[in-house]
């Protein structure tokens, strides 16, 4: 049984819809005077953050605390990692402390996968962003926001995003958010188009389940949601475009461009926004922009994921990647156990 959430591509359509439906109920806890559920009492969750993050770490922490888990925060700065400790040794330290789940953010793509599959620890691993690979809970909260806005809060229950057209604009090359979104939105039946300067489109994008365009204006007019990505200056080690001004002219979203979008279409951004670069202040502050909503939804989604992974004796998520081990020939009828019941 797969107990981890490493990649959005691992989720089946039914898993993803279950997470979104569960998050819809979790969201209602936020409206109550006591925003707390006893569900994960006695479970210990470590937030293992090797990379800077505000909203993701706080969001996970809020979700864990609302479910009554014991939370240990770990950031690489000021820890033994800065003295040269390896991921393996850190993991084994956590294992020795009896941790039930590790929420990990790491600058290296694949670190969460390594942690989950190495046998170093028994805990469930939740990927909170690894390098330029995946950020599955971000994709889930984006899908949740889209379903609420485009399908409806209550009418959306049990439904996916089939037929919706989603455009992701900007620095796709360095974006784990874009990768996770392409995987998840495809699973949920949406049609995804990536728009970016050719230099910021990754090699091998032809194998992704999406379209690629270099022209924002022609794509905008047929989009139900437009997701603007931040240009990740910290990961830029080459000249990907001539000037920032040219980038924002061609790929930035201003009020004039937003007016070309269909009336119901929304503007999304995973944050942090760079106002004036990929998005103008006017657009960022308009009521079509869901940035603040996405942050609130993030807590609900993370509560749902943690509940479904840790809330029972085994995870509720099936995960497509997991090979089904069926050996009917060797299966034997279990001897009848006593007829006591609960």
């Amino acid at each position, binding site marked *: 049984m797969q107990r981890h959430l490493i990649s959005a591509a691992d989720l089946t359509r039914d898993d993803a819809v279950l997470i979104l439906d569960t998050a819809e109920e979790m969201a209602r806890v936020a409206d109550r005077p006591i925003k707390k559920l006893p569900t994960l009492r006695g479970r210990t969750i470590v937030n293992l953050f090797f990379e800077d993050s505000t909203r993701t770490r706080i969001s996970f922490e809020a979700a864990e605390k609302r479910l009554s888990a014991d939370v240990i925060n770990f950031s690489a700065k000021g820890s033994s990692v800065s003295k040269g400790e390896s991921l393996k040794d850190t993991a084994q330290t956590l294992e020795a402390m009896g941790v039930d789940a590790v929420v990990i953010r790491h600058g290296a793509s694949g670190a969460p996968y390594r942690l989950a599959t190495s046998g170093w620890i028994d805990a469930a691993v939740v990927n909170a962003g690894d390098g330029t690979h995946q950020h599955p809970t971000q994709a889930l909260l984006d899908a949740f926001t889209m379903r609420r806005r485009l399908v409806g809060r209550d009418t959306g229950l049990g439904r996916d995003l089939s037929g919706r057209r989603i455009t992701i604009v900007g620095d796709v090359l360095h974006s784990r958010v874009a990768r996770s979104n392409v995987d998840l939105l495809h699973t949920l039946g949406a049609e995804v188009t990536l728009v970016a300067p050719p230099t910021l489109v990754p090699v091998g994008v032809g194998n992704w389940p999406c379209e690629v365009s270099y022209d924002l204006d022609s794509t905008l007019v047929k989009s139900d949601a437009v997701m603007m990505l931040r240009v990740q200056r910290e990961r830029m080690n080459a000249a990907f475009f001539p000037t920032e001004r040219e980038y924002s002219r061609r790929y930035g979203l201003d009020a004039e461009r937003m007016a070309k979008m269909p009336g119901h279409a929304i503007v999304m951004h995973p944050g942090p926004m760079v106002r004036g670069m990929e998005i103008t202040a006017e657009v960022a502050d308009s009521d079509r922009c869901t940035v603040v909503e996405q942050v609130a939804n993030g807590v609900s989604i993370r509560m749902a994921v943690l*509940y479904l992974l840790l809330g029972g004796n085994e995870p509720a998520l099936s995960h497509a990647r997991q090979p089904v081990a069926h050996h009917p020939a060797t299966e034997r009828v279990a001897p009848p156990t006593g007829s006591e019941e609960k």
Partner: protein
Amino acid sequence: MDTQAGHSASDPRPVLEGPDIARVLTRIAHEIVERAKGADDVVLLGIPTRGVFLAQRLAAKLEQVTDRKVPVGSLDITMYRDDLRMHPPRALARTEIPGDGIDGKLVVLVDDVLFSGRTIRAALDALNDIGRPRAVQLAVLVDRGHRELPIRADYVGKNLPTSLRETVKVQLAEEDGRDTVLLGVKPADQ
């Protein structure tokens, strides 16, 4: 081992039919009005799935009796269960608290079958996180006995003495297409 085979073949037998259920709910509605001296501050909270439909039906009956709208909602207890660690996580149901809340109100919890009492314990915990009612009462369609906790119902549709090998299944038109309470025998372990 084979002695149970004959039993398991027998079909579940109805112990309450549609008209009985309607009569029972009418009686409970009157009992609530009588005990609450008019039911001014009653809030009905059904426990999903079938408790919610029963609560809605009770609310309609109470409205007929008192000529006043009775607030009705639902209370999902999944996250408060004491056996969470024994099963995979369950899908959550809706908790819907009526607009005026439950503080200072008389909350009547409504469920279909009262058995071990563990569901009601979870419901009391869940209520605790939502507000502070003046009092909490319990209405059930069927009480089948075998309590594992010191919990009792205030309003009972039908007391149904059962053995632990028997099953009680409530079907309601809203969910199952018909109203009935079925008493059956658990199939023997294979």
